[in-house]
């Protein structure tokens, strides 16, 4: 339906369109009423409602009206501009109208979806439409800014996500710098023995990719390094990376490990972080045999030479390539890239927080990651599943959802724990022959071959008890419980409380954001959700984009996910980066600010307000000047210019004042 009329005394000719969005909008907002009302507003010559404005026919309707009715301005009432502003700008352009003669009204996310009172929601829709109609009169023709995109890419994080993204980009011929905080790439996946549900060996599928990274001519691999600072904007980022000292020259070391044998500590003595503290290592070490790069490093906290300067340095003597350098200093490197993929991963939940599960109090309680190392053929026990006192467990209880789906700790489902618990149950049973009990709230096995894997475990005779474990205790109430850990649980299928005595308890700890995710996101100027994971631009339609253009996220830094999903997402992030690189340039919103030279008095009030140093004082003219390339369009200087001499495209004073007037006019 539509109202049309001829217009009118100097006010631009405005077309107004309101979207039903199926029933998303129309079931709450009386779109016809809004359409009729807006038709009465000054300047509006066409007012229409349509089922789906964003559809091709919807857009065509606009383009046609622009031509037929000589529309000079366009207002669309639909969903959030974050979703479809671009769509309707294009529709305007198709009709021959400058894209920026357009204003979008958000009546779905901000009205129909959040209100129940139809009359009130309709009133609100009218107010918002009127505001846009008032505002759009003042819009000006603008062009997007084009800036070139540097084809080099930075990938942060060398887990499976970062590895996959780096290789994808490198294979496409782009130069990639991969920065990893630890001494080796591989991330959490390198800790695993097998991967569910196919049970293929994690090392077998991961290590070829790790060495491909190392040898790829397009990849520069910087491990033991951290990003210090990021400056610039999409297409043009300047990144400072700190390379931490290994005290071993990376270019000289060939990973023969003769130095480790030669170390003055004859036996490994210090807790081995890679093996979750279950094994020991020397002050000079390599995380694991397939570490990439295969370069040793020295832990300055335990190395005698580093601590006292009084060691005979047998390690250095054993190195025939003279790779040791006890005076190595941190090095700051600067690189230029156009896009960045963040794949900084996750951390596991601290099991000590669930005091009743006894982690840290009872030696028989383990985290899942510790078990991953115990069942690993190259782990500290070479795959032997043993308790901390060396005994072999006869019964093992796996508690699901530790630090997941819990009002008191983390509310979210960590998505991987059910599946890895099944995997560990299988491996523990296989390696030790123990009885294995899984204690679960719900079994969540949504994935290809996942449910089948669960079926297989049931057939293998692994026990499944549906119930959340209340506590793990060493309090024996019967002689059979003596010397055991007892899991007290309400079996919700059987309908009574059970006590299951076991020798080993495995806590299936959930996934959390990295402890420093908050700092990292500040460095890269992206957001975090309330759970602390990096925030994607749109949960469905832009899952690897962030609110900062040119910065993409992949893997568990965005939220809990398993390896297949992580790899898929890493590929997606790489593809998004390639889109920018291959386009060669990006178009930036023209919402920059500029100083009107003849109005400016050179008071400098604006200069210190700009976080990007885009404003400077032209010393000859004594006027402020804004560098449009550096300006990101926040408008802080515009609001603060005491003589109103700074303007901001798309957010001009008269645009906002008329929006205020419009939204309140009755």
């Amino acid at each position, binding site marked *: 339906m539509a109202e049309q009329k001829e217009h009118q005394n100097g006010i631009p000719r405005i077309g107004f369109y309101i979207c039903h969005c199926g029933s998303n909008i129309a079931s709450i907002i009386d779109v016809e009423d809004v359409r009729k009302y807006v038709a009465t507003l000054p300047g509006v010559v066409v007012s229409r409602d349509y089922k789906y404005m964003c559809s091709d026919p919807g857009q065509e309707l606009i383009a046609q009206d622009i031509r037929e009715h000589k529309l000079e301005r366009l207002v669309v009432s639909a969903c959030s501009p974050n979703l479809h502003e671009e769509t309707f700008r294009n529709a305007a352009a198709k009709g021959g109208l400058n894209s920026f003669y357009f204003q979008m009204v958000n009546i779905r996310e901000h009205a129909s979806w959040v209100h129940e009172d139809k009359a009130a929601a309709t009133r609100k829709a009218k107010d918002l439409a009127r505001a846009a109609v008032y505002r759009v009169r003042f819009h000006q023709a603008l062009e997007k800014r084009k800036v070139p995109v540097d084809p080099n890419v930075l990938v942060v994080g060398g887990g499976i996500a970062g590895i996959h993204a780096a290789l994808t980009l490198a294979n496409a011929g782009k130069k990639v710098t991969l920065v990893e905080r630890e001494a080796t790439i591989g991330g959490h996946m390198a800790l695993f023995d097998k991967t569910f549900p196919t049970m293929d060996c994690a090392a077998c599928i991961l290590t070829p990719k790790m060495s491909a990274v190392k040898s790829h001519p397009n990849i520069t691999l910087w491990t033991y390094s951290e990003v210090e600072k990021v400056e610039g904007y999409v297409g043009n980022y300047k990144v400072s990376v700190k390379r931490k000292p290994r005290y071993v020259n990376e270019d000289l070391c060939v990973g023969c490990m003769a130095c480790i044998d030669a170390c003055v500590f004859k036996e490994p003595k210090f807790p081995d972080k890679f093996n979750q503290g279950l094994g020991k290592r020397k002050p000079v070490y390599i995380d694991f045999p397939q570490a990439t790069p295969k370069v040793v490093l020295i832990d300055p906290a335990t190395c005698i030479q580093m601590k006292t300067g009084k060691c005979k340095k047998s390690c250095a003597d054993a190195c025939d390539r003279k790779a040791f350098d006890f005076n190595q200093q941190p090095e700051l490197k600067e690189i230029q890239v156009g896009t960045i993929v963040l794949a900084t991963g996750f951390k596991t939940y601290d099991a000590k927080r669930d005091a009743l599960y006894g982690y840290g109090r009872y030696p028989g309680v383990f985290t899942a990651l510790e078990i991953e190392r115990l069942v690993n053929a190259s782990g500290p026990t070479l795959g032997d599943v043993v308790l901390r006192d060396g005994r072999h467990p006869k019964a093992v209880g796996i508690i699901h959802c530790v630090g997941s789906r819990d009002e008191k700790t983390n509310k979210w489902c960590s998505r991987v724990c059910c599946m890895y618990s099944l995997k560990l149950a299988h491996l523990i049973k296989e390696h030790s022959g123990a009885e294995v009990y899984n204690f679960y709230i719900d079994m969540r096995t949504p994935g290809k071959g996942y449910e089948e894997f669960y079926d297989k475990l049931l057939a293998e005779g692994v026990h499944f008890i549906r119930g959340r474990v209340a506590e793990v205790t060493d309090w024996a109430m019967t002689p059979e419980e003596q010397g055991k850990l007892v899991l007290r649980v309400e079996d919700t299928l059987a309908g009574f409380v059970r006590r299951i005595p076991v020798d080993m308890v495995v806590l299936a700890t959930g996934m959390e954001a990295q402890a420093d995710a908050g700092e990292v996101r500040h460095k890269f100027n992206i957001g975090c959700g309330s759970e602390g994971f990096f925030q994607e631009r749109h949960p469905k339609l832009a899952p690897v984009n962030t609110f900062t253009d040119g910065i993409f996220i992949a893997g568990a830094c965005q939220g809990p996910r398993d390896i297949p999903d992580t790899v898929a997402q890493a590929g997606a992030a790489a593809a998004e980066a390639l889109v920018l690189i291959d386009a060669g340039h990006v178009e930036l919103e023209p919402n920059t600010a500029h100083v009107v030279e003849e109005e400016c008095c050179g008071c400098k009030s604006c200069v*210190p307000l700009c976080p990007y140093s885009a404003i400077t004082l032209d010393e000859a003219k004594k006027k402020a000047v804004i560098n449009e390339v550096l300006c990101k369009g926040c408008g802080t200087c515009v609001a603060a210019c*005491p003589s109103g001499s700074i303007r901001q495209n798309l957010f001009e004073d008269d645009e906002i004042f008329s929006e205020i007037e419009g939204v309140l006019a009755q």
Partner: protein
Amino acid sequence: MSAKPQVAFYWCASCGGCEEAVVDLAEDILKVVEAVDIVLWPVAMDFKKADIEARPDKSITVAFINGAVRTSEQEEWARLLRRKSQVVVSFGACANMGGIPALANQFRREDLLKYIYEDGPGVDNPAKTRPQASSQDEGRTLSLPELRNVVRSLDQVIDVEFYLPGCPPTPKLIMAAVQALLSGQLPPKGTVLSPDHALCEECARKDSKPVDLALAAFKRPHQIQIDPEKCLLAQGLVCMGPATRAGCEAVCPAGNMPCTGCFGPSSRVKDQGAKFISSVFSNIVPKEAKEIDAVLDGVPDPIGTFYRYGLSKCILRRKLN
């Protein structure tokens, strides 16, 4: 009727400073007198209201009206002169923005009258007598002008063509305005007859203003020894210069006093006080509300500081109560 342009001067709620400013034209006033016929100037010449009422409408070429409008009498005069004049020039800060009298918009009329006629320290009025709009005396009815609830700028009462800013306008600006009017080369209606950029442009201290003021405290002029060369804001003084229209040639800063904003804002700014706040306070040092508040305590009278001449033209116009 003479062929010379007919000019009227009138004053509403004002201190007389604007009249002084006309006299300050010095010998130039002779040129003015030669070029025009003055048909009304209560401070200097003896014309009556009846003389004006008797004139045909629009027979006065230009009327210069200074002072804020607070009483019914001022309103009546303003409306009368509007009717009789082709051009009305709002003259000086009080006519333009309410001026100092508009600070009364912070108080209710009743509270003001009560204070002045009853509670003030020097008042001896046991009968609590107050002036009445109409009263009887020996059989005659005496009337007094009504005191309005709101102090208004001239353009809140009548339509005006031009504005001469300042408390008072400088002789230079007055002379330029008169010449423009006489020559008939008139700017668009609504123009303020002074340069449309901020005062810093004209201030000798401008170059000494650091890029980043980084203010951690505000001072009042009596609290510090003011450096005669350095930017006053940089010394922690509230100088309204950046938010005030140029044209006075920065006479106050030249006299070692901060600008108090009498020229009003630039044409791009609706509310001088709000805009000044936005500019100067955005850049103070602290980041926490509590610490910010401690800095703001250094400006004990925000309205009197940011709207010293402009409360009538504040977007909110007056205190609500």
